[in-house]
């Protein structure tokens, strides 16, 4: 029995060795995708192009605006002198944020009254706009608090004035510098593994059927489960090597730390690969041609990628889609891979996801083997 499985395994590796295209596909696109994703996938908000209009031209107004030029969140690209210039700059996307100080700003401040500070944000990119607005509020709020404290200290704010403030001290855990690559690079490792292993497994089996060699295998003394084992073991090993290649390349190139236990990551990866192999075999039993197997990319893998929480949080999806994500093995694997890389957590935190992957893997492999056996009869 082991002998027959072993022979199939060797046959698969020889096929892989002689298929130049498959080897290319295993190494070059994943690395290119890792690079492109690593550099392009970012939601960070730095150097937001900003146009300022200071119609007060006083020490106070200049002080407030200078606080915006001293942070790396904003870059002042234009100093406008009319409202029309502001509108023009935002319409043409020359600036995404406009800061406007009206005349009389400092007069109101000196009297201890509240002075408006007008901010216009281009909402076309809602995410950037939201985060930029947060920073504007933070900087202006800090200025406001400093000014209030100054008024009180100099006794200019009235007899019974005392600033009462509650501050929020924020502490980002796990990724103190909020470096987006720490979030995306491990995610790319998981996503690429899913895409590669599933399409590789599916197309290998479909090709065998297309070429007609599957029938030859059937008339040999090999038993169906031996055939399935023999065909999946190579892809399992290839998948493991792929994870190692992409993970090492991504973490070294983009300097992403690894805080967790490699053994736990290995365990999660093995469970994840079970699901991907099951999915690959399942697709191969449904599709008759390589062309159809390729199309499954769009109908199966793309949705899985979208629903995995790779970039868009699952908690923001409509409830029905959130339920669907429980059927997505990548969803669990991303938790495990990010948990081990960034959070450095162990099984006590990751067991539900391990369990989810194990259940999905068992289910997918079970169904796919049943279907595969049927397709052999």
């Amino acid at each position, binding site marked *: 029995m082991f002998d027959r499985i072993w022979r199939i395994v060797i046959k698969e590796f020889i096929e892989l060795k002689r298929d130049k295209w498959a080897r290319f596909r295993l190494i070059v696109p994943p690395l290119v995708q890792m690079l492109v994703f690593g550099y392009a996938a*970012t939601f960070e908000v730095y150097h937001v192009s900003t146009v300022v209009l200071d119609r007060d031209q006083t020490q106070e107004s200049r002080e407030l605006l200078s606080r915006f030029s001293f942070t790396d969140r904003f870059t002042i690209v234009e100093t406008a002198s009319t409202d029309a210039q502001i509108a023009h700059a935002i319409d043409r996307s020359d600036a995404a944020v406009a800061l406007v100080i009206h005349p009389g700003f400092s007069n109101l401040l000196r009297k201890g009254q509240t002075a408006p500070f007008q901010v216009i944000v281009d909402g076309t990119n809602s995410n950037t706009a939201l985060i930029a607005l947060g920073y504007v509020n933070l900087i202006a709020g800090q200025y406001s608090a400093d000014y209030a404290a100054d008024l009180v200290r100099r006794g200019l704010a009235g007899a019974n004035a005392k600033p009462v403030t509650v501050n929020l001290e924020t502490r980002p855990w796990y990724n103190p510098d909020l470096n987006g690559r720490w979030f995306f690079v491990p995610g790319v490792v998981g996503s690429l593994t899913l895409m590669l292993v599933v399409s590789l497994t599916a197309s290998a089996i479909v090709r065998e059927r297309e070429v007609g060699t599957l029938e030859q295998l059937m008339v040999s003394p090999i038993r169906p489960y031996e055939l399935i084992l023999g065909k999946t073991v190579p892809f399992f090993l290839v998948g493991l090597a792929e994870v190692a290649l992409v993970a090492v390349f991504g973490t070294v190139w983009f300097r992403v730390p690894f805080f967790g236990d490699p053994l736990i990551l290995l365990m999660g990866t093995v469970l994840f690969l079970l699901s991907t192999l099951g999915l690959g075999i399942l697709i191969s039993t449904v599709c008759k041609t390589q062309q159809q197997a390729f199309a499954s990319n769009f109908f199966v893998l793309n949705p899985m990628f979208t629903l995995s929480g790779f970039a868009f949080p699952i908690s923001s999806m409509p409830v029905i889609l959130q339920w669907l994500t429980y059927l997505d093995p990548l969803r669990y694997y991303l938790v495990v891979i990010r948990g081990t890389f960034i959070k450095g957590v162990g099984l006590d935190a990751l067991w539900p996801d391990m369990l989810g992957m194990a259940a999905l893997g068992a289910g997918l492999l079970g169904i796919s083997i049943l279907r595969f056996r049927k397709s052999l009869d």
Partner: protein
Amino acid sequence: MKLVRIKAMAIKETLQVWRDPFSLLIALLMPLMQMLLLGYGLSLDIKHLPVCVYDREASQDSQALLKRFQASVYFNIVEGADNYRDIATSLDRGICVLAVVIPPDFTERLNDSGVSTVQAIVDATDTNTANIAMGYAQAVVGGFSTDAQISATDARGRPLQFIQPVDVESRVWFNETLESRDFIIPGVIALIMALVGAQLTSLTVSREWERGTMELLVSTPVSPMEVMFGKLAPYFLIGLLDAAFCLVFGVFWFDVPFRGTVSTLFVATSLFLVVILGIGYLISVKIKSQVGAAQIGLLVTLLPTALLSGYTFPIDQMPPPVQAITYLVFARYYVTALKALFLKGSGILDLAPQLLAMAAYAAVIAFLASRAFRKNLD
């Protein structure tokens, strides 16, 4: 070039798409599926973020502050912790994303010095969510702070004078409610165009090779140019139909505003389709296997459209060398035009740079494609 031959070619190609369930699936079902999946799935709007609270004072003030977190649509208190270890466990397990810690001397400090500090620990694994959550938490605490100032009294019970020097009046243009859907859906159209256009056309010539009909095609009097026009015309129409579908679906189903003119959208989409179809055709001529052509097609059209066009990830946040590369990504111009058309209502003159860039691209690709097909059987 004879129109009648182009027409014959186009009819043949249309029938081929019509009778091939796989092509039909990509042409008709794919746009609908992608629109629903991406329209609903790609949301960055954060609501009901799970919060864990650790109230070390348990006073009226601290409870009032926590009530504000509970009342906010952005937060949802899921757990009350009794120590820092509980917080660490909750964050480790992903039970909560934000933990609010109120110090034991919260009210005392507020009364004595007027300044009190609350701590927010946030799970920064997902940096974007963390950033937004911190912004919302700042807003909640800021609101509480303002009210505390208004209702504060001095030692003799007289109200303190209210001081808030600067008030930020923010206004958001083009997408007033900051719906992430309004910013995603226009880009999804580019993605669907790239997907459908490149997938369908990348098969068109390789299919003739694989099915052995290339000999037949070469033996007819049709010229290479006629082959190109005849083969691409049906896909061009399918592409326009899909674009129209996306527009209607986006505006009526997802309520995305469309402030530009349909004619400008038509011009931009036509130019983009010429580029995409041309690239698909080029690949199809060069690579004789259908699967290989489809894969290369995916790599050259879909990947740059998804990542380097600015459709979800803002180009201005990428490193400068990558930003330079995006100028070579034709989808960048289309996505910019789409977003401006939907949200800003830009006219054809505002979009002249994007349209010209696409036109230049289209001219180069069309030139290359017209020379690619040779009538021989090697």
